[in-house]
């Protein structure tokens, strides 16, 4: 919370129970946790918000009177605040109810208890556990981070596959739309990341559930969402690079660190150009058409006419998950013989598709793919992702060196430092590559196979039961 007083601006860390933890004096409200001076407040905030931007939610203009309750030594033992306020968000202004806040001081619990007892019994006041922030949200009707995620989605195992798939797609569409504004305004890197994940999941859904959605619909939207994916790719790659560059730079010795500045500036310029292209794409009629058409599909679903559209979702999901697992197994085994970057990339994509299916249909298999196989898959995916990032970054580094040299913007020492960085990336990639074997065997094994097969048999049983009861 940002407290803007007459004399100073204070940042206040308020726990859910209303206790005030840290406070820090600031010149203005920070955009990111990283903007704060090093210290406990920044570290704690960073642990929660990471690279996310701090967004304004609601403003409360408040007048507050403080009454201190003293003991015999004139020491304050409890504080009572009487507060009046107006909460504002956008054009909406609402008056908060008159509000009394009792603040106990550490070590004076009995005084606090005595006073609250007095307020409740003698004055008949009612205790409210909500914080001022929650109260302001309630009167203005603001719900921060109002997004449904896949974790909130509960599917019925007997539901028609097309209806269930559409519900999954609707959640993904909601995520896409919720992040679009943040992407356009370039608020922070995670809006684009979440936007992209929603696009990728949608593409996976279109590909993996083609027999449910029907060829015509799947083909049409696969192309369009593929375009949207490639539109957002370059900006995200450069975001990741710039985020990682901070860590890479820190590993280099002080004397050569400034040498990476031209690289950072070059990447920032390229990122800006990529983002401009992205904005242009989002403003294009192709994007508008896609969103309009997709909304119709997700909401009405008239166009879904696949051969498996009417089957129970649990049966379809189990079959699809098994297929996806087999693909991962095949690619995983191939990894033992050939470890080209392409084969690793293919394994990465196969893992993603499987992971998405498991996430889409988690609610169908409460007895099935427990956290265990998802955790093993996630570990493998983390390594695959890092390997891929390092691959992209080395390519980018070479390309950057070529461009910077061509433009005559760099000295020999800058190029040497970039060379040193390339070597570090290579070494790191080598370490990750060696870990991949372990990651694969940690996931592609008998235990996972039996769990996946288990899904299918329960799915089949249910399918038969449903069919025979009709």
């Amino acid at each position, binding site marked *: 919370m940002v407290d803007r007083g007459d004399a100073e601006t204070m940042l206040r860390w308020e726990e859910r129970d209303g206790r005030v933890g*840290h*406070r820090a*004096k600031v010149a203005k409200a920070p955009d990111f946790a990283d903007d704060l001076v090093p210290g*406990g407040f920044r570290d704690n905030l960073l642990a929660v918000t990471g690279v996310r931007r701090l967004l304004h939610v609601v403003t409360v203009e408040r007048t507050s009177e403080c009454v201190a309750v003293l003991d015999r*030594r004139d*020491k304050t033992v409890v504080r009572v605040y009487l507060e009046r306020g107006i909460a504002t968000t956008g054009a909406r202004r609402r008056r908060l109810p008159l509000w009394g806040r009792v603040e106990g*001081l*550490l*070590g*004076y619990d009995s005084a606090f208890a005595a006073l609250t007892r007095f307020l409740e019994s003698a004055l008949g006041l009612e205790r409210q556990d909500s914080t001022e922030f929650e109260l302001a949200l309630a009167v203005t009707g603001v719900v921060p981070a109002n997004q449904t995620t896949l974790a909130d989605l509960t599917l019925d195992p007997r539901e028609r596959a097309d209806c269930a798939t559409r519900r999954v797609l609707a959640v993904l569409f909601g995520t896409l739309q919720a992040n679009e504004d943040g992407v356009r305004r370039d608020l922070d890197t995670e809006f684009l990341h979440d936007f992209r994940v929603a696009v990728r999941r949608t593409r996976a859904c279109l590909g993996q559930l083609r027999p449910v959605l029907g060829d015509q619909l799947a083909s049409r939207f696969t192309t369009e969402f593929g375009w949207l994916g490639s539109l957002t790719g370059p900006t995200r790659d450069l975001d990741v690079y710039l985020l990682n560059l901070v860590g890479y730079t820190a590993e280099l010795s002080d004397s050569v660190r400034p040498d990476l500045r031209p690289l950072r500036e070059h990447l920032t310029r390229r990122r800006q150009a990529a983002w401009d292209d992205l904005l242009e794409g989002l403003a294009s009629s192709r994007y508008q058409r896609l969103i309009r058409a997709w909304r119709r599909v997700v909401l009405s679903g008239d166009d879904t006419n696949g051969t498996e559209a009417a089957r129970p979702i649990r049966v379809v999901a189990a079959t699809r998950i098994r297929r996806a697992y087999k693909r991962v197994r095949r690619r995983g085994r191939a990894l033992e013989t050939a470890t080209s970057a392409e084969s690793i990339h293919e394994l990465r994509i196969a893992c993603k598709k499987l992971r998405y299916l498991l996430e889409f249909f988690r609610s169908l298999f409460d007895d099935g793919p427990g956290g265990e196989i998802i955790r093993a898959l996630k570990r493998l995916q983390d390594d695959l992702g890092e390997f891929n990032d390092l691959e992209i970054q080395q390519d980018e580094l070479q390309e950057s060196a070529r461009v910077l040299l061509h433009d005559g913007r760099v000295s020999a020492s800058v190029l040497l430092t970039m060379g040193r960085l390339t070597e570090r990336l290579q070494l790191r990639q080598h370490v990750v590559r060696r870990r991949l074997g372990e990651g694969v065997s940690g996931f592609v094994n008998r235990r996972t196979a039996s769990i996946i097969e288990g899904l299918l048999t329960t799915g089949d049983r249910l399918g038969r039961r449903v069919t025979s009861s009709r």
Partner: protein
Amino acid sequence: MITIATYNIKGGVGKTTTAVNLSYLAAETGARILVCDLDPQAAATYCFRAKPRIRGDGRALVARKRPLARHIRQTDHHGLDLLLAHFSYRHLDLLLDHSKYVRR
């Protein structure tokens, strides 16, 4: 960690008062401060108008029989807390010398 010592062999020259005021200024910057009043005369505790009292004695504290947090009081200033003084602290040097928890 930076250590600042306010020391003088003479009494009543303002060692405790300086330490208390430095802690107040540090708390004003937003840092969370705990003043540990280990002086059996309890001058710092007195500065904050708190009552120097701990059930048990210094021995229980050093032997970790009582949680330290129980003897902490919030002062009238935000972010500034106080570990209360106790008369038994006059033997604290001896107690610490014999404690199994002390690491040099």
